[in-house]
């Protein structure tokens, strides 16, 4: 079983559309949406939820106004400026700023503070027409998304081993923060989707730095390459210099949007279109790279 994570650094490079296309090509795979903040893969894969699990996303302090003596200790010690004076002149916790460190609770002389666990995040195991899928929904402004990504990837791997699936396909989050880190750790390869734009390349470079620090092999797709063929050449030479295998280039096409409008992957929407054939050969190449492994140096 091999695990591959699709990432792009910048959002909007077409990562989810490409993941969905690959999902419909990869037979015998488990899908995992690592973009727990703004997951979109389910809009195409239409998962039918089979199991729902809760996830602890840290804690939140709560002040009991009846026992509070308004000594302000809590306000002074909170390094996150999460405690403010409300209209009644009493200290109150701003739930969006509190990191749940429990320092205020521990130092409150009146024992007026209690910290509760937040169980605002859910994750799911689902069926899709292409195979099992693990995905999640974060509560508003919740933390610990990195841990949630680690948790759902674990589950996806477990299912893949149970079902003897060949692949786990992770649709990664944007950025290079904690969720990206969690989605790279321990994966067999990263598939980078790059848009030939100044910001697309800039973000891809930062991401490559991060992925390299985990020593995970990378291959790349240039999406919408015909938007600016000159810049595409720049991207290509960057990839070459960094020994990143370019598995394919895909032109800009409104068909991606059209296929999403009818909740289909591009492969299902237009199986014989040149872009679909292109995606098929890309998938074949990725498979080979993953299986031979030696191609990644």
């Amino acid at each position, binding site marked *: 079983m091999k695990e591959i994570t699709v990432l792009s*650094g*910048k*959002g*909007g*490079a077409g990562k*989810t559309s490409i993941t969905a296309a690959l999902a419909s090509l990869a037979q015998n795979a488990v899908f995992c949406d690592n973009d727990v*903040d*703004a997951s*979109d893969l389910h*809009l195409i894969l239409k998962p039918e939820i089979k199991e729902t699990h809760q996830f602890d996303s840290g*804690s939140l302090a709560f002040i009991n106004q009846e026992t509070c003596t308004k000594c302000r200790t809590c306000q002074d*010690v909170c*390094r*996150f*400026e999460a405690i403010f004076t409300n209209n009644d002149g009493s200290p109150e916790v701003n739930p*969006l*700023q509190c*990191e*749940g*460190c*429990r*320092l205020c609770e*521990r*130092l409150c002389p009146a024992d007026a503070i209690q910290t509760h666990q937040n169980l605002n995040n859910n994750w799911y195991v689902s069926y899709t027409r292409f195979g099992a899928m693990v995905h999640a929904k*974060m509560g*508003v*402004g*919740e*933390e610990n*998304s*990195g841990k949630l990504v680690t948790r759902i990837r674990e589950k996806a791997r477990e299912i893949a081993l149970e079902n003897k699936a060949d692949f786990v396909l992770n649709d990664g*989050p*944007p*950025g*290079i*923060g*904690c969720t*990206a*880190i969690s989605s790279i750790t321990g994966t067999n390869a990263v598939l980078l989707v790059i*848009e*030939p*734009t*100044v*910001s697309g390349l*800039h*973000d891809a470079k*930062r991401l490559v*730095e*991060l992925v390299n*620090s985990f020593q995970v092999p990378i291959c790349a797709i240039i999406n*919408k390459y015909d*938007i*600016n063929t000159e*810049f595409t050449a720049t991207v290509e030479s960057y990839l070459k210099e960094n020994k990143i295998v370019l598995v394919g280039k895909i032109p*800009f096409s*409104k068909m991606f*949007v059209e296929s*999403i*409008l009818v*909740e289909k992957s591009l492969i299902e929407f237009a199986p014989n279109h040149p872009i679909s054939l292109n995606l098929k050969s890309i998938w074949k190449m990725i498979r080979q790279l993953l299986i031979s492994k030696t191609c990644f140096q």
Partner: protein
Amino acid sequence: MQIAIASGKGGTGKTTVSVNLYYFLSVKYNNKVQLIDCDVEEPNDMLFFPQAKKKSETEVYTIVPEIDKAKCTFCKKCAVWCEFNAISIVKNLKFAEVNYDLCHSCGACFEACTFDALKQIENPLGRISEYQTTFGAGIMEGRLEIGSAMQTALIKKVKKQASTGQTITLLDAPPGTSCPVVETVANADYVILVTEPTPFGLHDLKIAVEVLKELKKPFGVIVNKAGLGNNDVYQFLKENNITLVGNIPFSKNYAANYSRGDLFENIPAELEKSYHTIVDQLQLIIS
């Protein structure tokens, strides 16, 4: 006046809209407009200002503990107080270690240790840079140390450093709806959500709207890449009484300009027109 520009998901054109608004608002408000790139994981706004001059650069740090093994009694109290599992103590082995990747810099361990065995040291969080652009009051960006998970802490520091006294401060938020975005919009007077008329755009817009409603923030929506996709997003705005601040038509030529980092020269007339409309709309909203 602080206006945050957020988007629920990446790739809707938030950066383009932020940078263009910075330009068009600067024209309108006598250059008293500042842009702050709060997407500290991937700050991109400056890519569109290759001529800008750097005015300052500051390294910023968080305070983390360092254990002085000569003083440490391995009593473990600090480890018990650390809610983030950043401290490991093994008494028998006289082992004491801090994992800086997990430390939130909350300060609990310092309060816990009664043996004066913890020293406060600085852990690099990132850099804050300020640039002078040919128009406007300048751009500030925060750039997170690669591998750090402390976006929120850096965004807080960037916002603190932002110069006051501008008529308008634009905050370009990170993508998504989690804590860094909440931190960015926390003190904003108004939030603009940038979306695109596709099922992905609409889905993520709905989540962002939920977040802003929970935060009780006034907000409006700009539909970018109008014409690409369908009308569901407009239907949604109408049904939920959400202000449509503006429409920016999709243009493949403009996408090519953007790919080169070229935004203000050669802006198509129809796009310029939509930005003027947006600026007028915003003026009404602000006043």
